[in-house]
């Protein structure tokens, strides 16, 4: 292990000297964790995530992470991670697909307990029939779990978002989990150039004393609430308290907007945003959209692109304003339900502009030509 120095986060996020590495998405996770001053990482394997937590174990062996172990299963891992965060340490884990669903109860529990856990979700299809292939359907399940959701398009995004997620999650007025999502295999198992900060730098440690809830104590909430929950009482006060608690968790997610803007620049990125036709999506669907946009523009068609980086909080105002000028909005997705198209329809004024597709799933690739076909149909 090399000797590291704690520096201002801005120096890690925008270092004067960067190193270019040609690495996989899983290796980008490792490089982010190396600089994140993580106290604890807990692992359980599942394809396509296994390699990232394997590499986190290598960091433990090298001395960059203080504690590391394998849990019994995903539910146990997410429970252990909750315990670590309640005790006041910076903790990381990762999962994907069926692993996400197996542990599902814990994600709203993390948010409700105001735990600043960072978890990477390497998405894949969920049963049945069994598939290990890329698919973003698990993200639809997590939309209302209370966690912040960032969606990486590339290995660079994955590195950047994980390293920034700790700072966003740990703000006192936010202090809820951040899920950093990437499309399994497309991002995790392919190599790309990733610019990283010098390995001698690391983030400042987590300050648990600024938490909006007390550290673990059986006589204090949230532990006491779990042991003697007010929801078990049948009266208006207990119901109103629970409702107010949930509203506060939603408010915490809302407050994260300004920190996402601070650390990631914005909740969206745009190319040719004033175009008649906009391709709006997230993750690798936007990579395919970008190729389609380039082809379309070469043909003289007026097409732009909107990459959504933050799924929760959703960039409602940004999308609403962009949609006003567009005549057509194409939403390519790697899932069968079209959850992103639904999200977009829920915030824009004229939902008839939205073309909810093309959509592929079960591991199918999405040829840019399939998006180009939609562009051609809109242009007629």
């Amino acid at each position, binding site marked *: 292990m090399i000797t590291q120095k704690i520096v201002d986060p801005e120096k890690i996020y925008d270092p004067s000297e960067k190193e270019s590495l040609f690495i996989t998405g899983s290796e980008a996770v490792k490089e982010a964790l190396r600089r994140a001053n993580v106290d604890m990482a807990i692992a359980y394997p599942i394809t396509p995530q296994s390699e990232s937590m394997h590499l986190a174990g290598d960091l433990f062996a090298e001395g960059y992470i203080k504690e590391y172990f394998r849990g019994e299963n995903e539910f146990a891992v997410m429970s252990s991670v909750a315990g670590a965060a309640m005790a006041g340490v910076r903790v990381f884990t990762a999962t994907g697909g069926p692993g996400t669903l197996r542990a599902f109860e814990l994600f709203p529990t993390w948010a409700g307990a*105001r735990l600043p856990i960072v978890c990477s979700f390497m998405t894949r299809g969920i049963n049945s029939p069994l598939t290990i292939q890329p698919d973003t359907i698990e993200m639809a399940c997590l939309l209302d779990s209370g966690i912040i959701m960032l969606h990486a398009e590339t290995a660079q995004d994955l590195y950047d978002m994980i390293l920034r997620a700790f700072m966003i999650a740990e*703000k*006192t*007025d936010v*202090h809820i989990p951040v899920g950093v999502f990437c499309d399994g295999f497309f991002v995790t198992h392919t190599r790309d150039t990733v610019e990283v900060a010098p390995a001698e730098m690391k983030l400042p440690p987590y300050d648990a*004393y*600024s*938490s*909006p*809830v*007390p550290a673990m104590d059986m*006589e*204090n*909430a949230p532990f*006491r*609430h779990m042991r*003697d929950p*007010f929801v078990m*009482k049948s009266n208006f*006060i*207990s119901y*109103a*308290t629970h*409702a*107010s*608690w949930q*509203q*506060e968790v*939603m*408010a*915490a997610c*809302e*407050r994260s907007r*300004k920190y996402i803007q601070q650390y990631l620049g914005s909740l969206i990125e745009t190319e040719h945003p004033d175009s008649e036709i906009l391709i709006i999506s997230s993750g690798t669907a936007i990579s395919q959209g970008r190729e389609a946009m380039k082809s379309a523009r070469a043909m003289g068609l007026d097409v732009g692109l909107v990459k959504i980086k933050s799924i929760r909080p959703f960039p409602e105002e940004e999308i*609403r304003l962009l949609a006003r000028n567009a005549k057509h909005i194409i939403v390519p997705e790697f899932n069968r339900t079209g959850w992103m198209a639904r999200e977009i329809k829920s915030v824009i004024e004229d939902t008839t502009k939205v073309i909810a597709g093309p959509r592929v799933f079960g591991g199918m690739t999405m040829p840019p030509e399939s998006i180009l076909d939609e562009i051609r149909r809109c242009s007629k």
Partner: protein
Amino acid sequence: MLTKRYEVQKGPEGYLPPAAAMMGIVPSEPGTSLVEGQMVLQETAMEKVADALLQAKNPVFFPGPLILWAWKEGVEEKAQAIKELADAAGAKIIPMPDYRPKYPMINPEIEINPNHPNLTIWHNNIDVCLFVGVHCHYANIALKLIRGGTDCYTIALCAEAGHEDAMISLRDVGLDQIRQITEIVKKRKETQK
């Protein structure tokens, strides 16, 4: 879509009022404060705190665990300064020693609880209250419940990022800021004589 700007006013606002953050109220930036949802300079907010306390019929401070227990250096001095502010403003003190829901019932004469703060406010006819030293999550829950069910005017002196659900919210409040408010209160009282 919001057509009218939401204002954080004293209640009772209704059966289940929204969290102010969900209505477009953004936490104040360092050096600024929130007064009824509007960002103002911290000095302006301090004046408003003094006004609210001195105009109240029954102002009460609700100190929480972060200031009731000497858990780190500097807390005792801060607690002393809060006591001086309460004395200067003629405010009573009812502590919030912990966050456990109190069943079968709370004694509202001697304590307040974030899960049912309205009981203490109703029982004691409190028209202005000041939160200090309460963990942010619990302060926000309580402030919203108070706005929902009572007509009490709420003030939060927060050592962290502040509370949009309070009618007056000061952030990054330390010993100096508390003493500054005390001085303003004392000066106001002098000029009112």
